[in-house]
């Protein structure tokens, strides 16, 4: 035992680490399989449709209406999300107060809940009897607009999910902004609001762009809650995700694929914006 120890300390054990190739091949192979799956799906969509189909689908008035409604509702719900997510993210990032864990948990609910359940919950919320009336009737009376099975329901269904993702993004954004500069601003004579608008917000704009695009993309993909809460009425509450479903249900596979590709293009455009902003952050 003693002699062995002495031998080990006097001359190091000979050792060769061996090849890294198996490990690199394994991670490349496993990771690459997912990338391949995505590319194959997109390629299949492209192979299935033709420019003629694509253009024909785009010329249908129902689909044109759906494109317009999608662009408008996604933009409104993304803007609403950022309007709510910025203060909420800041609040959760900077302030510790009793019951914060509860708020933390509550705002994660839309992230983990099946989207369909959110739609159903919205539907029930607006129609729950409330002293002989309900929320739907109250909104109609005081704001003069229907919600359920109408356009506002589309926005609300999108917002209910998208905002949760925007809050997560904004919270991380504020967590990454050093609080020291804000504190120094307070010693220089700022109210909290002045420190927020003049010091914090100018540093947060990239996070806001990211949150906005994420909220927009989530709204674009929203389907379940819209179907339940807003319905799928052509030329009324039909958005692109509903179009894919409606076209499929009447056997119009070509139109469904054409609209799907349109959404893929929109998603790529959104991802492009995020990457572009990210690249400018790093440069």
């Amino acid at each position: 035992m003693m002699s062995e120890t002495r031998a080990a300390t006097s001359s190091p054990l000979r050792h060769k680490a061996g090849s890294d190739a198996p490990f690199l091949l394994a991670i490349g192979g496993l990771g690459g399989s997912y990338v391949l799956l995505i590319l194959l799906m997109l390629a299949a969509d492209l192979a299935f449709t033709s420019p003629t189909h694509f253009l024909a689908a785009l010329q249908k008035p129902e689909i044109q209406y759906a494109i317009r409604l999608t662009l408008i509702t996604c933009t409104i719900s993304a803007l609403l999300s950022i309007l709510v997510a910025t203060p909420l993210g800041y609040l959760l990032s900077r302030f510790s107060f009793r019951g914060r864990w509860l708020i933390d948990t509550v705002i994660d609910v839309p992230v983990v809940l099946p989207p369909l359940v959110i739609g159903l919950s919205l539907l029930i919320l607006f129609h729950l009897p409330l002293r002989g009336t309900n929320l739907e009737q109250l909104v109609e009376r005081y704001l003069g607009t229907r919600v359920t099975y109408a356009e506002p329901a589309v926005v609300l269904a999108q917002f209910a999910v998208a905002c949760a993702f925007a809050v997560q993004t904004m919270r991380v954004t504020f967590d990454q902004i050093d609080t020291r500069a804000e504190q120094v601003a307070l010693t220089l004579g700022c109210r909290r609001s002045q420190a927020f608008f003049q010091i914090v917000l100018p540093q947060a704009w990239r996070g806001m762009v990211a949150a906005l695009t994420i909220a927009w993309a989530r709204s674009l993909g929203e389907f379940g809650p819209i179907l339940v809460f807003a319905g799928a009425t052509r030329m009324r509450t039909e958005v692109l995700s509903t179009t894919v479903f409606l076209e499929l249900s009447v056997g119009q596979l070509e139109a469904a694929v054409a609209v799907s590709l349109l959404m893929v293009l929109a998603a790529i455009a959104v991802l492009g914006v995020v990457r572009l902003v990210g690249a400018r952050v790093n440069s």
Partner: protein
Amino acid sequence: MIELRELTIRSGSFVLDHVSAEVSAGVYAVLMGGTGQGKTTILEAICGLRPIAGGRIVVDGVDVTRWKPADRSIGYVPQDLALFPTMTVREHLQFALRIRRASPTLLRERVDELSDVLGIGSLLDRRIRGLSGGEAQRVALGRALSFRPRVLLLDEPLNALDERTRDRLCELLRTIQRAHGLTTLHITHSRAEARLLADKLFVIADGRVQERPLSDLALFGDEPSPLIAAASTSPAS
């Protein structure tokens, strides 16, 4: 004048209990002590950035213990400087004055004056990214002085600077402090720095702040003095 009366601060397991100290008006005081002794905590408490559990903070005879940081008019240069990443050097110097709705004339005059004294005139339109350590220190100092505070708090402001820059900045700090009669509390680890600056020396150890004669600084070389080092190694740390 800065007076700490029986100041008690608790933060997790860290406790400063019944700390009292007094820096008279126009005095340059240096506070030394080991890492984790609460030097920064005391400065933050004086600015109002850290809640205190007991005691009083009195600045120029006024009890500011419950005042907001904004109302205390104390110039503060934190250890990490915390410059504003989206602003130019000029905007840093103007910031506190804009908050106070100063006139354009005053803004211009004050920026000219500060940039002249601090030697940062050529940097005014630059953002803070890419400023050297010494330049960034000057900007942070200019920002803290811009609204003419009566009290200046400096948290290891000359750390990580080469010796020449440090000596020049020490000279600058003394010049400005004398010119404006600023009551200054300056935290440092460096005995050389303390020798160049201090009118008064405080040492913090084991949750107590004690005034020490300046001769303590002269006794030893630049290594932490046995006195300060011994006082700093509490059983807790």
